[in-house]
């Protein structure tokens, strides 16, 4: 019976262009858009321009310009005057600028109204560059960043796609819960559910038969998105592929549980179609699918842990970015996702009414 349901639901999906687009094409659009928006990390070939002005022959200015040019991720953009630097920053043509006038302290031109999470890293990095350039003697390195024991080293060239591919894969991966709930509502409204209940099929099998096809479709969806991320956007898998697979299965199980929970509230396709996407979007937002939780305030980072998305993303980040990450390393994410899956599923089963 489950085999027949899989065939039937795959056929139905293949004939539903809107659903196909929302499951497979829309996430790709989001990955491209978000990947282009968040150019954090080295993103080889696109260093960040920093506007700079100093008088010709000014030794301090030249030293700073040389230091800036030798710093990965930055490129100096000399302008004709101090005013031009300030104007370029004011008009968002560059993120920051440096004005070096003789006898004055170096002016870091930056929008102080920008959130500290956005401004802080840039301000800190440029301060470091200037201090290193102007130090009276070249000191040996005094600080070296290292990951603590137990946390694997990240890969060197983390691009924005290392984050936006899993972010959108998780966001749209969970949207299969909406498809599941809509499918239940559709079968109830057309009467095919009544036919199923009148057939010699155990009710648990009827329920499972509705979930298994979508579990498989969800796995294909995530495999497609991660495959595309790796092939087209240069996303790397620093850890174990098996860890990636385990995490993906856990995400899909969780999405199935959530879909069953949505379906257990009953309601028409229209009601589900207006309620569930909102819930999924808020979960994705809080969980860091659209904006990494790292840039969120501390309390929001903690609040994000109430949704499975954040656990999934923590796991994916480790697998994609940290070298040698194994299934054991992402155990907290796997356990949390399985707990969410069981919780959603149990609640869904307890609330689910076969007869209405």
């Amino acid at each position: 019976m489950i085999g027949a349901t899989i065939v039937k639901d795959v056929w139905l999906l293949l004939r539903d262009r809107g659903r196909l687009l929302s499951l497979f094409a829309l996430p790709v659009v989001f990955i491209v858009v978000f990947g282009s928006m968040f150019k954090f990390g080295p993103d080889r070939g696109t260093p960040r321009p920093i506007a700079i002005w100093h008088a010709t022959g000014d030794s301090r200015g030249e030293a700073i310009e040389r230091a800036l040019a030798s710093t990965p991720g930055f490129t100096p953009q000399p302008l004709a005057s101090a005013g031009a630097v300030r104007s370029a920053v004011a008009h968002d043509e560059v993120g920051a600028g440096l004005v070096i006038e003789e006898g004055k302290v170096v002016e870091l031109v930056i929008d102080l109204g920008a959130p500290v999470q956005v401004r802080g890293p840039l301000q800190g990095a440029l301060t470091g560059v200037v201090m290193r350039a102007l130090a009276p003697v070249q000191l040996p390195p005094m600080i070296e960043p290292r990951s603590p024991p137990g946390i694997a080293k990240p890969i060197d060239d983390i691009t924005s796609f290392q984050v936006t591919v899993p972010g959108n894969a998780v966001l749209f991966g969970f949207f299969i819960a909406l498809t599941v709930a809509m499918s239940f509502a559709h079968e109830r409204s057309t009467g095919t559910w009544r036919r199923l209940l009148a057939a010699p099929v155990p009710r648990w099998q009827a329920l499972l038969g509705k979930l298994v096809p979508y579990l498989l479709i969800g796995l294909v969806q995530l495999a497609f998105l991660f495959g595309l991320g790796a092939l087209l956007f240069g996303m790397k898998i620093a850890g174990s592929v098996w860890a990636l697979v385990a995490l993906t299965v856990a995400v899909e199980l969780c999405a199935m549980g959530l879909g069953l929970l949505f379906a257990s509230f009953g309601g028409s396709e229209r009601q589900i179609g207006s309620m569930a996407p909102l819930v999924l979007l808020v979960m994705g937002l809080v969980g860091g699918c659209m904006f990494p939780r790292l840039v969120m305030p501390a309390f929001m980072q903690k609040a994000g842990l109430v949704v499975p998305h954040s656990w999934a993303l923590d796991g994916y980040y480790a697998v994609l970015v940290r070298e040698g990450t194994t299934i054991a390393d992402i155990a907290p994410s796997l356990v949390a996702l399985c707990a969410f899956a069981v919780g959603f599923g149990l609640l869904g089963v307890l609330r689910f009414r076969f007869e209405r």
Partner: protein
Amino acid sequence: MMLALRGLGKDYGERVAVKAIDLDVERGEIFGLLGPNGAGKTTTISMACGVVTPSRGSVSIDGHDLARAPFAAKAKLGLVPQDLALFDDLDARQNLRYFGALYKLRGKALAERVAWALGVVGLADRAREPVKKFSGGMKRRLNIAAGLVHEPALLVLDEPTVGVDPQSRNHIFETVRALKQRGMTIVYTSHYMEEVEALCDRIAILDHGSLIALGTIGELVQRHASKAMTLELAGDVERAARAAEAHASVVREGVLLRVEPKAGLAPLIAAIEGSGATIARIESRQANLETAFLALTGHALRDGAA
């Protein structure tokens, strides 16, 4: 006995949808379940098919108790729901393959059953067309095919002709008769009197969740329709109708009273004339299932009064 209902009833909270029905459907007969909308027909067959859990009573299908041996009982049963329970985006053959697979049909056996069911409902040449391109009548026929693809011993048809054109209706009638010829037992629910009269060997009449009559058409007419008549009145018809109620079951339609005297015509006429009204015309109606239904329920089948 193909289907036996014993004390079968259903409550939804405080509301009693079906009280307690006792019913036997014989092997090989077409059994009609007649009643106005809301009478409890669909709830009754939903319980009989295991779609809805009864609040009381039991169901037995071909000797298998539905509660104790649900899969054995359901394997004997085919349900054709009132809704068009089909997948519009799949073609006719794919629909039937899916529904056949629910009954453990596989491979060649499934292909043969699908071809047979499509042939029975006259859709063999449309097997590869998506259902969404079908007319309403064709969808109704495919809906029936989906219920009989596993060739059940008992086929339950819930209002199978709702919204179909006369041509498709005739085709459905022919299909039902042909299935009876093959020895299939059929339970046919409808709120169309003429359909039940044309098709069914025996009829049960449901009203307000109760079984109020059971028998062949002839038995029902003989028992319940022999005294029905129509009186055309002049004067205060409303007062006359109230006076008549003591001596007959009465349905008023304008200046007409459809009555069935309880004990002779004379006291009824005396009561009406005593109320001040005069009787302009008396029409003794031909006894048929409709008059029997009227006599039993006090309202016409399509009043929607249930």
